[in-house]
């Protein structure tokens, strides 16, 4: 009977010592996500620093979860945010409502919005999950 006990423990010890570990020690260690991972949205910029987004609302129109709000305004002399006439004055995504389908990225005519592999955006309140333009914009 004692022999069985040691036999079982030996199996356990073998796994502790020899086998490769499956658990990733998040957040210290991060697993590499697949190249097409679709998580938090990012609003991109042009090389000269101007926002790519032109505030056309097509992402909001394509969104099946209705989680995007765009309020556009006109670029003015001295306050230019994007090339062309129009820019998004307000751009908000409710990440709690988002289903990460990527239709917004598909609909965007200027490739401004993109779903990146950013997965750590949990928070303590619902309002904190409404991402505004300055939170979404790439630096």
């Amino acid at each position, binding site marked *: 009977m004692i022999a069985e006990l040691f036999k079982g423990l030996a199996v356990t010890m073998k796994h502790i010592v020899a086998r490769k570990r499956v658990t990733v020690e998040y957040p210290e260690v991060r697993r590499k996500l697949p190249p097409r991972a679709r998580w938090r949205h990012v609003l991109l910029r042009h090389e000269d620093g101007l926002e790519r987004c*032109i*505030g*056309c*609302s*097509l992402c*909001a*129109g394509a969104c099946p979860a209705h989680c995007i709000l765009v309020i*556009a*305004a*006109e670029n003015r002399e001295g306050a230019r945010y994007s090339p*062309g*006439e*129009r820019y998004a004055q307000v751009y908000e995504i409710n990440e709690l409502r988002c289903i990460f389908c990527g239709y917004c990225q598909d609909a965007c*005519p*200027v490739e401004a919005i993109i779903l990146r592999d950013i997965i750590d955006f949990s928070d303590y309140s619902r309002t904190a999950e409404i991402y505004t333009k300055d939170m979404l914009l790439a630096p």
Partner: protein
Amino acid sequence: MADEVNLTIDGRQITVPKGTLVIEAAKKLGIEIPIFCYHPKMEPVGACRQCLVEIEGFPKPQVSCSTRVADGMVVRTNTPEVKQMWEIVLEFLLINHPLDCPVCDRGGECPLQDNTFRYGPPDSRFEHEKRHFEKPVALSSLVVLDRERCILCFRCVRFQREIADQPDIQVFNRGYGDYIGIFPGRPFDSNFSGNTIELCPVGALLSSVFRFRARPWEMTSTESICPNCGVGCNIRVNARNFRRVVRYLSRDNPEVDGGWLCDRGRFDSTFINDPERLTKPLVRRNGELREATWEEALEAAVDGMKAAGLRAAGIGSANRTNEQNYLFQKFMRLVIGTNNIDYTMEPMAPGGTDALVAGLTSGFFSGSIRDVASSDVIVSFGSDISQELPVLDLWIKKAVRKNGSKLIFAYPLRAELAKYASSFLPYSYGKEAGFAAGLAAAFVGKAPEQAGGLSGDEIESAAKILSEAKIVALLVSRSVIESAPDGMETYRALESLVGTLEARGARVQVMLLVDGANTQGGMDVGLLPGYYPGYRKIDESSCSEIAELWGAEPPPEPGLTGWDVVREARNGGVLALWVMGQDPARDLVRAKEIAEALGKLDFLVVQDYFLTETARMANVVLPSCTFAETKGTFTNTERRVQRINQAIYPMSDSDSDTDIILKAAFTAGAQFEYGRIESIFEEIARVVPQYGGLTFDSIGPFGRQWEVRR
């Protein structure tokens, strides 16, 4: 019949009147032909070439928008050749079109987009640089032009030339280089410039008020009525998220507006979501207006009014709905206990209101807007229609320019319509009665030497035009009867003029022109000191009649008019006043005097959207909702009862005027019970004989005129 023509379109037979356009005949059969430049209300021009069809016997394809039908014509729109032509024309139009649909306001409701999706080529073969213009260019403070997007259909140019007759916008250059523009240094200054934005089949003409506010698919559309003048043009209120009104669009009511709006109405939408709107009730404490709860404010308002006893008064409004005005006057009569109710505070002629009411109840004022189109002489008396009722001005211009009607324009100043008048009669202010009597006398051959500040010759020439008329539309401004010094005389003179005209066999339609969107309705539902609802002159029998209808007795004595209230306020005859939806201390001609009188009151309640001049003087200010936030009916100048619908939620803590009055009545302990807005209208239909038989549903989307019997 000789006036009818038979033709075949796509193998289907149809009979249409002679002179019909091929495209209209096709439309009757339900056959769709893509168009850009064609518009049913304007002359065809055939500029865009989109509507090409094959017609047997013609060597080349023809534009269906400018080809008139002929007997035995065989038209084909469904052959591969026609489809190819449509595709080629679209590809051609798209050569210089920038395709910046994502940032274009039209994207989503754009005929060019729609036609391209349906008939156009999948992609462009054009490899060169597109045509470039500076963009956008502000044509005026309201209209913005983007010439790159323009496909040169000339709809805007034609509208301004043919319909508004203010040809401020034109085509410049020729051929490849042509573009739409305005005279350098002169803005696009027209009363109707907004219509060109709606007519534009691409996003070339844009509204600076609406620009970038919303995409078409984000908006809800609510059928409503423009609250700006007595014409009562039908509009669609476009709103975003049921919170923000972004624009008004026209809604074609062929009897009222013909599908056009004036700029005053169209660009007025911004006031609804103005950040200055009142959001909380205010009560004056220690000399300062401070925020209060609804309960506190209503209690203070009712107590203050009741403290004045019989020396209280109420002023309703010309831009509040029938339901709101009806409840207001019922509240004033039954709860506050006064007949001192009026719809305005401007000075009235002695007997002016009586003349007006006599005209309305006897059927003297029974004309309609559409009469303008069918008459051969139009007489306009006392109103600068182009400014006061702008869309009616389009009806008159059309009658004069297209139908050859003659216009007799009587107004003290050389206003815009004077240029269309066969006879322009600038009588002197204050001599309206003399002028009307002179005209009536001249007509029976007894021309006076001089009348109303005009020479006998001038009057006689007008009388001569009238004597040749068979159908006359007489448009009489409310002001010449009600506020001119001798209103009753003017009315009598007009009556005798119409009497003689009719005795001669002419058909005369007299229409009363009122300025406010609901001045007419306000009077109908009882905003008059001398009359109960339905123009019942206040006396014993009408008092008991109303008492029976209401189940409570209204005060039996006639009250003070708005102007009497001003006078009495100065010497303590009126102590408390409740003003709903008006700013008499700023808007009226005698505003200074009125403000001074209001300052002497013990107690003033104001119900309005903004902290107006009048509201600043008030003891209690109640924030009310705009027409876009409520439901109800307006009655326009031709007595047409039209529906408005709720487009957005009430802003912040504001409340609709009906609810405010109901809450005030409740605070005062009165029993006013109405389940819905419709039940108030049902009561109006019971109490006001003119509205008898009307219901919210039977009014329909285009309104119903209340009948006057002659």
